[in-house]
């Protein structure tokens, strides 16, 4: 039974999953908005290259490591990005980031998940964006956050996985941002840490 998150919501992952979690998959998906063709005949879908990234921060807000299309695996092997989807084609998750909660280092406090428009189109052309967290051991979806993202911004700070009082929680952030890559997005990320 997946819970549909609203913006600002914070949930305990293990409570929602109903048990201990070892590995979770953060799935991110979106559709390129359909555009009308010439004289209103037909429709075509413009290709949008959105990139999902995961940045690991410590308690002080310092970056420990990250997983993204330029580095698919963190050095400690705890976070793996399954690869760049350059068009958004296909149903379901367009990009996935697998987090091995057992391997995440003790000093890591938060994992921030972002989506950036690498080719520069803004989110007015993006529909049905969502992020969802799946229990990798049984493929059950734990929670989903549907984002109404349409607008002139070029990045989205989607969600945060973080440790609180000894348990892993998820915070549905859903804030708009600007930047081709997460590096440009950093100053906008820090208020949410």
């Amino acid at each position: 039974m997946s819970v549909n998150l609203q913006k600002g919501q914070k949930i305990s992952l293990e409570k929602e999953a109903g048990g201990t979690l070892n590995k979770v998959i953060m799935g991110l998906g979106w559709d390129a908005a359909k555009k009308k063709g010439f004289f209103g005949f037909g429709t075509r879908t413009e290709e949008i290259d959105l990139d999902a990234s995961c940045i690991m921060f410590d308690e002080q807000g310092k970056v420990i490591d990250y997983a993204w299309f330029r580095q698919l695996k963190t050095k400690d092997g705890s976070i793996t990005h399954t690869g760049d989807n350059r068009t958004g084609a296909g149903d379901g998750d367009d990009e996935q980031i697998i987090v091995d909660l057992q391997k995440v280092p003790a000093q890591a406090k938060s994992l921030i998940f972002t989506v950036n428009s690498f080719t520069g189109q803004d989110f007015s052309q993006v529909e049905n964006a969502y992020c969802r967290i799946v229990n990798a051991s049984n493929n059950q979806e734990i929670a989903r956050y549907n984002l109404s993202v349409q607008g002139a911004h070029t990045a989205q700070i989607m969600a945060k996985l973080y440790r609180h009082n000894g348990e892993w929680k998820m915070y549905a952030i859903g804030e708009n941002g600007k930047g081709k890559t997460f590096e440009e997005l950093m100053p906008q990320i820090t208020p949410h840490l």
Partner: protein
Amino acid sequence: MAISLQKGGNVNLSKEAPGLKKMVIGLGWDARSTDGADFDLDGSAFLLKADGKVRSDTDFIFYNNLKSTCNSVTHTGDNRTGQGEGDDESVIIELDKIPADIDKISICVTIHEGAARNQNFGMVSKAYVRCVNANGNAEVARFDLSEDSSTETAMIFGELYRNSGDWKFKAVGQGFKGGLGPLASSYGVSV
């Protein structure tokens, strides 16, 4: 030692803070650093009879009515942004001055225009509400609004109530739909 309050938890104030005469309820949060309307959190207190209702509208202590008629409850004023360190709003309660016909005091926190601004406690950074023993400033209990009331815009933090000559504090931590107006109505205030 401050107790981190969970819903339904009780704190026997006379036990945790013996000789407690003056209690301060402190409400704090960080000012908004992302784009959008300010987070304007409001603390309020309702002086209630045994039937759970106010005696009159003057028993509703909030930013537009800062002092109770018996002088037992005082609100230190409206903070509209969360600017400033420490508690941003406080409600001071002098236990000895609480009139005999008041059985309990309900302490609430609401987000001003929360529904209209599409805000909830989860979006507010480091929002908390706490009880402090005014003598010595020891924190008796604290509730993390940002973490544990994330989807709410209004909530009943707790109730101070009489029990066999002692004052006890019960952590309620219950969300309330609709905001301060409906909350006040539910306690018998004419809004």
